């Protein structure tokens, strides 16, 4: 049996004197879409940041295809970056660049592709997220929040990644736009046949995107199952989240 794409093994991380992760064991299997749900401050973002190399665990290891990150001279981390795409919570688009330059950033600056070729690839990636070539020469600040998310998604998928990371992909979006983003994510993950890790507190999003769902609570995985099990789970914490998501606002 091959090693998982990503694995958190007995990971512990303290922030501000508080154990945010306390012996986290989790695996992202190849070709699966795993969604981590949980309340605020339960360590969802830290879990993602550890995989992306923005933080290091105090104890324990994060493994990429069975090898510990970040590796000597951060080479394994670099390999993960080369084979992954990330959609950030606030989109994190480079505001001094035009939309097509943002989308093609990896091709232009990491791979050194010619601008013409990179622009064509960016326009193709924009079409994958249902944005026309007319937005290519706009600046990110000229776009709506939903369009910015689409541009962020186009940037994440442009290199045909093997792993996609989604950090709260629907935060701040209206329900219709959020549904459209969820569907785009599902379509792109399926089209690319890649693995996906999403962190969210939005159960609508989790139900749409996930193959597997894991509940993070108290710094550990408190429950894990496939998405069809979410509504019938016995775990009281899962039930509380499901009930809370159904409560009228």
């Amino acid at each position, binding site marked *: 049996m091959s090693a998982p794409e990503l694995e958190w093994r007995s990971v512990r991380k303290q922030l501000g004197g508080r154990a945010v992760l306390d012996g986290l064991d989790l695996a992202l299997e190849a070709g699966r879409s795993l969604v981590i749900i949980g309340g605020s401050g339960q360590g969802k973002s830290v879990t993602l940041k550890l995989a992306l190399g923005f933080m290091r665990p105090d104890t324990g290891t994060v493994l990429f295809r069975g090898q510990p990150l970040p590796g000597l001279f951060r080479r394994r981390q670099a390999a993960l*970056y080369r084979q992954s795409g990330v959609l950030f919570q606030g989109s*994190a688009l480079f505001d001094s660049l035009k939309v097509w330059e943002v989308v093609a*950033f990896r091709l232009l*600056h990491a791979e050194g592709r010619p601008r013409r070729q990179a622009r064509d690839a960016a326009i193709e990636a924009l079409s994958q997220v249902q944005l026309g070539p007319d937005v290519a020469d706009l600046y990110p600040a000229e776009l709506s929040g939903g369009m910015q998310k689409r541009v962020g998604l186009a940037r994440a998928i442009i290199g045909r990644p093997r792993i996609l990371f989604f950090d709260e992909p629907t935060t701040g979006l209206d329900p219709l736009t959020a549904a459209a983003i969820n569907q785009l994510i599902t379509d792109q993950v399926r089209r690319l046949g890649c693995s996906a890790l999403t962190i969210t507190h939005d159960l609508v999003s989790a139900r749409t995107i996930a193959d597997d769902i894991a509940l993070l609570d108290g710094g550990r995985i408190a429950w894990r199952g496939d998405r069809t099990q979410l509504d019938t789970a016995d775990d009281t914490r899962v039930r509380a989240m499901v009930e809370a998501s159904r409560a009228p606002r």
Partner: protein
Amino acid sequence: MLLQAALAPFSITGRLVIGVCAIVGALALFVGRALFACVTPRWHGGQIVRQAFSIGFLSLPVVGLTAVFTGAALALNIYTGGGRFNAEQIVPQIVALGITRELAPVLVALMLSGRVATTIAAEIGAMRATEQIDAMRTLSTEPFRFLVAPRVLAGVATLPLLTGVADVVGIAGGWAVSTWSLGFSSEAYTRSTVAFLEAWDVQSGLIKAAVFGFIVTAMGAFHGYRASGGARGVGHAATQAMVWSGVLIFATDYLMTSGFTEA
């Protein structure tokens, strides 16, 4: 309680020393990484050109205005001071010497610490706050190479050029006020300036400018890179960048002047 009060000064001093060591260590690491990124491939040529335009070309008006008024005021002051011992004729020589060796490089650097260091700190700080720097890393692009090195290289290259412009404009300011209102003949003023100036006067100013260019851009990038806490953090980073680049400019100016004088 009494013991705690007695130990308080030591505690405060210790915390202060640790804080200073931490910031000096962080700055040293940052400068080391920045230098490494500057001298090793891969270079982002487009970014270097863009930054050189922003730091260099767009600073020309403010540098020109600063230099011309400084040269003019310097001429007036030297004329007044020289008059106290019948040495008004030394105006061209002292204006040239003061501008090229000291005032042009220092004033250009100070103007740029206000215009450039703050901009760099705010830009990079805002990028840090909105996860753009993290995003860059995930796109296999090292932020030090893309954000810091081009700015530092552009600063080191353009500050001497701006200082060269300030040399010419500052001396012209002194010439203008001397010929129009102090009774100097244009030809005599120009001849005195050219005859008195040595190549080293200009060269030493340009060397200082290159060092100041590094300080201004590196301090902007350093404080921007460490910014945290949203808009307030970005504002704080911009202020720190200006204050510390100003202090370092004066300190290194003294050290370099002292070294050049002994050499």
